[in-house]
């Protein structure tokens, strides 16, 4: 339990904890429609940032896998996509709760929402694709190819398309101000929260990857 190896886990937890405490106690600008729910930004939007980071990690390891076919890379790519789906599911559910309050319905026909839903569908397809190939090295290769495709399309979905559409209610889209317009008092809570959740996500990924390794080694021992 050396501190050297584990400091980032503690940092992640501390940053999230900080964003929870300051998220409620800090001052936020008084805004119409949103009122106090502007604080959801600290908890709902951080999920998307964490999800996007996990998907990018997954992409990175898929590319690395195609370069030298190391089995571990494929495991990390899969598990990162798994954790990303967890964050995405939480993001959608919290988003629905928030939208129900501010926009009057849980699923307004917003390009960002639809984009995220279809993007997640692409990753569900990724897991189905994995399940349908038995041979391990072939599965890794083909899934990596599809993962790269899915990532590009996901980016098009959640970033390019809503920006082009003129009817999105999310920040940074259409005529809405982006995160650059965030009140300075909120920035000092929001960005630490993002980093904190990303670190927690990496921690989850770390645990899942290690347990998959144990599984693999057990299987190897059985075969020998």
């Amino acid at each position, binding site marked *: 339990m050396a501190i050297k190896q584990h400091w980032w886990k503690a940092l992640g937890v501390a940053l999230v904890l900080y964003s929870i405490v300051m998220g409620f106690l800090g001052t936020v600008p008084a805004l119409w429609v949103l009122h106090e729910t502007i604080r959801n930004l600290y908890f709902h939007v951080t999920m998307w940032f964490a999800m996007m980071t996990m998907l990018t990690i997954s992409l990175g390891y898929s590319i690395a896998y195609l370069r030298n076919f190391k089995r571990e890379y494929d495991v990390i790519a899969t598990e990162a996509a798994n954790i990303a789906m967890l964050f995405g599911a939480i993001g959608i559910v919290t988003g629905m709760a928030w939208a129900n309050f501010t926009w009057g319905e849980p699923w307004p026909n917003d390009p960002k929402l639809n984009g995220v839903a279809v993007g997640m569908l*692409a990753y569900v397809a990724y897991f189905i694709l994995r399940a349908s190939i038995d041979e391990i090295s072939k599965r890794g290769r083909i899934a990596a190819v599809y993962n790269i495709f899915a990532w590009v399309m996901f980016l098009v979905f959640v970033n390019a398309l809503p920006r*082009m559409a003129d009817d999105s209610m999310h920040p940074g889209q259409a005529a809405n101000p982006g995160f650059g317009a965030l009140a300075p008092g909120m920035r000092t809570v929001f960005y630490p929260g993002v980093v904190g959740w990303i670190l927690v996500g990496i921690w989850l990924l770390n645990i899942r990857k290690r347990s998959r390794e144990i599984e693999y080694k057990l299987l190897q021992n059985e075969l020998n």
Partner: protein
Amino acid sequence: MLKQIVNLIGKEFILEFRTKYALGAILLYAVSTVFICYLSFGTIDNKTTWNALFWIIELFAATNAVSKSFAGESKEVQLYTYTLASPGAVILSKIIYNIVLTIVLTLVTVLVYTILIGNPVVDMVLFIETAILGSAGFASVLTMVSAIASRTNGNLALMAILSIPLLIPILIIVIKLSLIAVSGMQLQDPTGFLVALAGLNVVTAALAYILFPYLWHE
């Protein structure tokens, strides 16, 4: 490389015309789907519905047409092709061939759809541009997915699951564009969308070109 591509495209066309039933089956699929829609709808007054129905028919017709491009080939034929040509040439020739096939299919569908159900399109030029760019996009995504699906165990069922999420960005842009063409109201400048659609096609083809070698390599 270029010669290989040209030769391979020629091969695809020769094969297609030798087995005329394949092309006929695709066209029959599109025509009969339109006919079923005609029987159940009659004429469609609502422009949005007209547009949506057209693209749904188009989406499934294209999926049907392209899905056989890799799965339809026997293992031996594939191995033989791969010994003769580079993987990049194989995928590019398939994509180009499928683009041509899907565009022909789309134009036939537009014709039959117009005759049977009617055509409320105001800006026909924009509509045809959209149809051509959109079917090119469908074809390039579907070719790549068909290559992926052909490497799995149950490939035809997977085809739909794998391709639909990847096709939706193209479908969204295409529906937006053709809605502008149908209504004739220039609320938004369509050029941006056309450029985005063309860009998406190029990105898809480039990704397919880069990634295909990893698929066929056993």
